[in-house]
């Protein structure tokens, strides 16, 4: 074993939860529905079935049943050509249905906010037990609610409905009479992030169960998009510890990392740094899905008579351990940072995130097998007039190569074809920002098919109005 080996990634879980009933609670649909409740039927008509969501090839790529590169050869629109081989059991993780998601919400609910009916709880238990993600004991400990126990708080305005297949299957209560940080909508957002983080973590634990007990995990770092808090501290956080608790990690504590969509990738770096410093030997980085981003582009999808593609919550869990030669390592010596003094030009950002790590590793642009950048599914964004996000990022990388004399202008398309990938990740912000490719990179590296991948994530800090700057982080992962 190499004595100087950096910490390694030994397991990754990429999970999805179908959430069409929650699209109405996504930020854009919620605001539009408040102005025009009549939109509900237009939205309802465009929600797709679980089978359609599972068969959708970008989702199959996310959970590991196909490589993202394979999407290039598949005819568009992808939503019109479901994969006949599709499975909800992904090589990297499970794609659960909405009943299972509601069951998970109930399982993860520690504040007695969630009520679900008996049929939904039973369906959830069956599904989650088949997937070996829950024990019979913990599901049996949950109580379902009668119809009027669900309906009454909704009618009085103290709870919001939880929908399943077009009917009210449960409710989620607000956490306080007056606290704006504890409304039912905010709590649903937070609980959805928690639950899909727990889903990813439980799946990760299942992947490594033959060699590791849950107690072997010492620390959990979460990097999602929610804000857990109360009126005195709206972003108090530490969803990491709540996730660790609901995944049964009795010997762990943790914290959250926040930098908009760069959070999760920062978490991976931080985990490796803690291990490298000898503080811990096993750290999990986890992220749950973004409820706020459900249905973000729904207007365009409805107008174009397409399915509403933003109907899934994504989760990820990454296990980082001390260096061995058997797994790809996180090159802590290649950190790409966009500093305050770098300035906010596009060139400064791409220099920092791409040329920074390459220079530290004494590599050229072509020495990197793949660039994992903002991998958002173009079928979601192009139809809404927002372009192809990964393609735009690859053009920036290639253009910088041209300016630095490493690439000719004519070679740009070939460079992108060889070192880039089509987008495939659900538009779940931090999930699409590089980390969605970790599982694929680890698989390819362990199979000897790849040597080096640059992971680069951006955080749009300017959206919070505290700075006009953007942020990003990057580093190399090597076999």
């Amino acid at each position, binding site marked *: 074993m190499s004595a100087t080996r950096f910490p390694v990634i030994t397991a990754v879980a990429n999970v999805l939860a179908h959430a069409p009933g929650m699209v109405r609670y996504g930020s854009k649909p919620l605001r*539009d529905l408040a102005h025009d409740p009549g939109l509900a039927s237009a939205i309802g008509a465009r929600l797709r079935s679980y089978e359609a969501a599972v068969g959708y090839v970008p989702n199959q790529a996310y959970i590991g049943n196909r490589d993202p590169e394979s999407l290039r050869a598949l005819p568009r629109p992808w939503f019109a050509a479901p994969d006949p081989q599709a499975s909800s059991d992904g090589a990297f993780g499970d794609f659960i249905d909405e009943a299972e998601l509601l069951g998970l919400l109930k399982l993860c609910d520690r504040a007695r906010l969630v009520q679900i009916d008996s049929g939904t709880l039973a369906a959830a238990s069956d599904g989650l037990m088949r997937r070996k993600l829950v024990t019979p004991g913990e599901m049996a400990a949950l109580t379902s609610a009668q119809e009027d126990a669900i309906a009454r708080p909704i009618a009085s305005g103290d709870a919001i409905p939880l929908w399943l297949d077009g009917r009210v299957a449960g409710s989620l209560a607000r956490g306080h009479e007056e606290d704006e940080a504890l409304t039912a909508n905010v709590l649903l957002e937070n609980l959805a992030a928690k639950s899909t983080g727990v889903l990813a973590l439980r799946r990760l634990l299942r992947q490594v169960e033959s060699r590791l007990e849950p107690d072997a995990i010492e620390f959990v770092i979460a990097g999602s998009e929610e804000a857990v808090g109360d009126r005195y501290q709206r972003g108090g956080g530490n969803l990491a510890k709540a996730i660790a608790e609901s995944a049964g990690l009795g010997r762990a504590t943790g914290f959250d990392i926040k930098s908009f969509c760069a959070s999760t990738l920062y978490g991976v770096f931080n985990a490796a740094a803690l291990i490298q410093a000898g503080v811990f030997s096993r750290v999990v980085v986890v992220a749950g899905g973004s409820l706020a981003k459900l249905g973000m582009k729904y*207007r365009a999808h409805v107008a174009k008579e397409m399915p509403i593609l933003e109907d899934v919550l994504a989760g990820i869990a990454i296990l980082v351990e001390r260096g061995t030669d058997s797994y790809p390592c996180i090159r802590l010596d290649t950190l790409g940072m966009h500093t305050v003094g770098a300035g906010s030009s596009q060139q400064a950002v*791409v220099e920092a995130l791409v040329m920074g790590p390459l220079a530290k590793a004494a590599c050229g642009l072509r020495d990197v097998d793949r660039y994992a950048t903002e991998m958002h599914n173009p079928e979601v964004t192009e139809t809404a007039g927002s*372009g192809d996000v990964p393609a735009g990022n690859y053009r*920036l990388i290639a*253009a910088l190569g041209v300016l630095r004399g490493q690439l000719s*202008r004519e070679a740009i398309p070939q460079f992108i074809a060889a070192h880039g990938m089509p987008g495939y990740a659900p538009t779940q912000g931090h999930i699409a920002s590089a980390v969605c490719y970790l599982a694929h990179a680890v698989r390819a590296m362990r199979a000897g098919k790849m040597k080096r991948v640059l992971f680069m994530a951006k955080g749009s800090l300017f959206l919070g109005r505290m700075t006009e700057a953007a942020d990003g982080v990057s580093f190399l992962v090597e076999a």
Partner: protein
Amino acid sequence: MDLEGQGRIQQVVKQNGTDRVIAVLGANSAAAVEMTAVTIKSGDPSYAGPLAGIALGVPSYHILEPEIVEQIDPAVYERELALSALAMDVDEVIAPMKTIRESGA
């Protein structure tokens, strides 16, 4: 388009008027640039935002249109725009701009 800042733009225009006011855009796709330009001139075409049905009449330019670029300090251009100009298909992105400016209404 989801021009979420439509409300604030409307405020700014109310306070300052439209005399000598132009919009300068930086999107990297023709579709995005077109939607923003139409919204700021003629109102939100999706009838969803604060500018639905409100024609501010403000003309939009893309930062990479030649008539804009030639007025920019060359050192500033090098630092702020050179990479984007190489990365985007500039002709394709700026194609809708003149037509939108010159169209009636």
